[in-house]
């Protein structure tokens, strides 16, 4: 019998708030972090979900004296701090950091690599600040990183390598990323509309999110875990490659389909048992269509589904963890959140896209993501 692994605490730092409660309230009111911003000098403004730097600075200064941190590092520290205060760090505690580009902004106009652009240095700096005792693990799998980081924590705890793990995921808006997605002509001219007929592309976002993940063991029995204010079992996970194209999703949804299938098989749940899908929904035609095909192949077309991108934009390496956290909040509040900016069906296959916030019993959550490199990831979370 394999060890069970649970998420028992989390936090997030986004344009909608610096803790989970403020984010949840903003989502209930339909607020979005997406607005028009000038990101690159001498270039047009883009719709993006950006944290107000002054507010971030103010929040950071409330809790931290040390100023020697980049903007992204400050976001990481703020999201992790409350979790580190509530849970013990031991020799058997893992520190897992998910990011795609880390401190890439430091590279601008540099002739050699600044140390801070190494993802392992970034992770070590955060780890040292909080006094983690194990070597940090960085998960960098494009846009599925945040979902995978949860799976990595589960798998390494099951492997017996660690007893528990702090997982943190983050990416910030940069010229680097905006110019790149713009060169692909993937950036929307409007606030993004996942799955909608009139969608025009993605909005990039930024956020950090953190979770505490723990295994059942002698010190942390099932009773101890059930004494936490909440717990979600990570019942299944998988990350399957499309083996099709490095920058375009599979037209058949093969990789996502197989990821969902594996995760649901491991979790031992059927399509009828899944109560809610937190999908990737970037609002590009190819991604949304691919997802619709994969969900239909799994007979999940009647399960209520949303994309959080209309609220937060696409937060790259942070999105999977952030959206998992919001899904768990949905389950705890028995409330499904609408898929913002969706009006008219814009994919060829049926999907049950949530149009209005509504009450619902949520026990099993399916969270998915897909990204460059043909990667896909799926996890099943079970409310305990």
């Amino acid at each position, binding site marked *: 019998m394999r060890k069970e692994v649970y998420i028992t605490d989390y936090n997030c730092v986004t344009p909608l708030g610096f803790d989970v409660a403020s984010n949840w309230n903003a989502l209930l009111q339909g607020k979005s972090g997406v607005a028009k911003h000038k990101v690159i000098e001498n270039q047009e403004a883009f719709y993006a979900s950006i944290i107000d730097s002054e507010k971030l600075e103010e929040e950071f200064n409330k809790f931290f004296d040390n100023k020697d941190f980049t903007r992204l590092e400050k976001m990481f520290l703020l999201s992790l701090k409350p979790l580190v205060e509530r849970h013990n760090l031991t020799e058997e505690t893992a520190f897992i950091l998910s990011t795609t580009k880390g401190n890439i902004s430091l590279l601008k106009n540099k002739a050699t*690599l600044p140390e801070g*652009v190494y993802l392992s240095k970034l*992770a070590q700096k955060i780890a040292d600040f909080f006094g983690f005792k194990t070597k940090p693990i960085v998960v960098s799998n494009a846009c599925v990183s945040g979902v995978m980081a949860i799976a990595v924590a589960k798998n390494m705890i099951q492997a017996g390598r660690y007893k528990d793990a702090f997982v943190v995921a983050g990416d910030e808006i940069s010229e680097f990323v905006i110019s790149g997605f713009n*060169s692909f002509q993937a950036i929307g001219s409007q606030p993004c509309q996942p799955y909608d007929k009139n969608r025009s592309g993605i909005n990039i976002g930024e956020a950090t999110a953190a979770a505490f993940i723990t295994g059942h063991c002698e010190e942390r029995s099932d009773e101890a875990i059930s004494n936490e204010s909440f717990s979600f079992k990570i019942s299944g996970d998988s*990350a399957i*490659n499309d083996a099709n194209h*490095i920058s375009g999703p599979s037209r058949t949804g093969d990789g996502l389909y197989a990821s969902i299938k594996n995760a649901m098989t491991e979790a031992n749940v059927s399509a009828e048992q899944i109560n809610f899908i937190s999908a990737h929904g970037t609002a590009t035609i190819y991604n949304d269509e691919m997802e619709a095909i994969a969900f239909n192949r799994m007979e999940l077309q009647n399960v209520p589904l949303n994309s959080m991108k209309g609220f937060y934009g696409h937060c790259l390496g942070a999105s999977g963890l952030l959206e998992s956290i919001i899904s768990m909040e949905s389950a705890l509040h028995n409330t499904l959140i609408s898929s913002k900016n969706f009006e008219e069906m814009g994919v060829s296959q049926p999907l049950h896209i949530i149009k209005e916030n509504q009450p619902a019993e949520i026990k099993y959550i399916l969270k998915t993501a897909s990204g460059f490199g043909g*990667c896909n990831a799926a996890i099943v979370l079970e409310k305990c």
Partner: protein
Amino acid sequence: MKKTDICTIENSKIIVNKEVIFESQSKVFSEFAKEAYKSLELNYPKFHKMDNLSKLAFLASEMILKDGDHSKTAIVLANKSSSLDTDFKYQESINSQDNFFPSPAVFVYTLSNICVGEISIRHKMQTENAFFVLDEFDEKFLNDYSEQILESGKAEKVLCGWVELYQESYKAFVYLLTN
């Protein structure tokens, strides 16, 4: 868990299971890679479009995967410099407002897991994959992670290892794990 078929690439040499199968005088990685591609008769034109990290990972995995069925072989790779080699080149294309030419063909390689995608496409591997960034090669970590994939039944073999490259400094150490 058994470790079979080990490929090492460093100092302009490709070594498979302790045997040097290709060696070049070229100290420049891209030249070395091109010569290796020709000499080993790889016949996969997409190779030339890849960035250097993907070329390195591709060459190392090619030596191990060329024979056999890999429909149930997962890929677990790691390195230190993520995609910084290509990140640096991409950044140079956007540093100046007067000379601002971001290229999608370069940008797509500014993610370290793209090399895993390239290997997956080459061998039609719709399988579990993961890319980690670590301060140094940690074989035990990668093997522990791979073992979980094997034990859960999500794969029967794992292509595992280290693919590090920044400018002219590179090393690949890739191997196959089976139960």
